[in-house]
């Protein structure tokens, strides 16, 4: 399935969610920019549509660019190893120290728990619990069993550009 077909499918599943689709940097990967609050709906489609089946959240990277937090979800498919897509969305915190909130993708990609915890600790991105109507059945429960913590003396979000200034 090519980039345009995937974008059309996303548009059908979550109308208005896709803001832009373009090449990721100078690589062959496709990046699809979406509206942040529709990430879970888009994730559900990308994961469970049999033609796409992006079942592996390889990486979740957060970057601060000009005061805007950009979330990049690097997705792979074990069924189609050459299919790789980066789903991206941006959020603007109200103040320097304010948290931002997006829907969590843990219900779709359980391995995302550690990445989301890290994004919260380092950048102040809070991930809202799943709001999917039909939550996929999980064979394993990671929620309670894994946590990343930092020393109490770390206040704020260390990887934001203005941290400590």
């Amino acid at each position: 399935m090519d980039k345009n077909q995937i974008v059309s499918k996303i548009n059908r599943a979550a109308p208005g969610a896709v803001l832009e689709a373009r090449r990721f940097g100078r690589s062959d990967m496709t990046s699809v920019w979406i509206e942040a609050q529709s990430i879970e709906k888009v994730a559900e489609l990308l994961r469970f549509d049999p033609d796409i089946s992006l079942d592996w959240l390889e990486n979740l990277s957060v970057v601060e660019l000009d005061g805007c937090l950009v979330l990049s979800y690097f997705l792979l498919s074990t069924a189609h190893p050459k299919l790789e897509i980066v789903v991206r969305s941006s959020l603007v915190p109200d103040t320097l120290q304010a948290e931002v909130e997006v829907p969590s993708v843990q219900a779709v990609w359980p391995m995302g728990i550690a990445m989301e915890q890290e994004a919260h600790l380092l950048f102040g991105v809070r991930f809202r619990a799943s709001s999917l109507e039909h939550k996929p059945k999980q064979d394993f429960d990671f929620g309670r069993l894994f946590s990343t913590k930092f020393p109490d003396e770390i206040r704020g979000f260390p990887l934001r550009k203005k941290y400590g200034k």
Partner: protein
Amino acid sequence: MNDSNGEVLRTDLTSWTIGPYHGSLPAPMKLCLSLDGEIITDCEVETGFLHRGLEKACELHSWKATVAYADHLDPECAVFGELVLCLAVEQLAEIEVPLRAQCIRVVLAELARISGHLSFMVRMAKAVGSETIIHYLLRDREKILDLFELLTGARFSLNFLRYGGVSADVTDGFIERVLEVCELIRIRMKEYNDLFTFNFGFLKRTSEVAAISKNLVSHCGMTGPNARASGVSIDVRKVFPYSGYDRIDFEIPLGHGEGGVVGDVHDRFLIRLREITQSMEILKQLLDVVPAGDYMSTKCDQTSVIPPGESYVRIESSRGLLGCHVVSDGRNSPSRVQFRTPTVANLLAIPQIVRGIRIEDLPVVLASLDLGIAEADR
């Protein structure tokens, strides 16, 4: 719980907290265990004790200095951090790496893989209480560290790779020394097999213990030898070849459950032993025909500014898929360097696989996962 006479022992449920610093743990981390007698019934994992702000440090230094920080991502196998960062920056700045430099990089990476797997075996030997074998393994790993020293002047933090190549050409006699060490380790493989693989005591401690199913591998996003031990054939060197791996002929060993169950501790050990053999095969093929030419791109100035943009690159480290997302805003230092490390997924699997094992098996299971907390906490 019943003893041999069928009598009820009336063991109570107890809670143990191990760590962050404890002899049975491979690195700083905390495990909160619930025990029914000697059986682990529940486990919670807490990490973050080794957070050093590595990614933040990269943003605060020049592009050139960032290589030295990437070196400390995983101090045990420093080359992989350097390699993934250099590849990401080279993709971003469209820097061509000469074939000779690619060859030297792969030689270092495969030597680091062998060294990493030997260190893994040391931790396994320690966990099962085989003190003597530890010395045999460290003796052989020293030979690899000697090779690093011969080429780079350092044994652990090499700081040898540069954007566009490597910082120096191979020294006289290096290639011959690598081949000698490969031959030596090939001979020692029989010794390792006798001492580990077919050893009755080792089999008893590792067979059918803490098996990882394919389903758990995909749920956690596990990669590397731990995933391959469970029969999941995934290796970045094959799927997304880099640095000339597509020109090399090698196999990806998979777990077959020789110890009893596919993906158990014994399989995770065997996979690494077989990967050492494959790494030696790669080294032999590479060193047969080391390409002539430059070891550094002539178009790349290390002090130059990397153009604005971003890139994401992945490689196969000794622990699994290591990714690097680099963002440049055109200034002298990176705007963002983010690493995707394989150990995080392995940590997610711990609570699932230790449930039901005996407490004395916990150090063996943790050692079998080859956890690199330094790279997970960063």
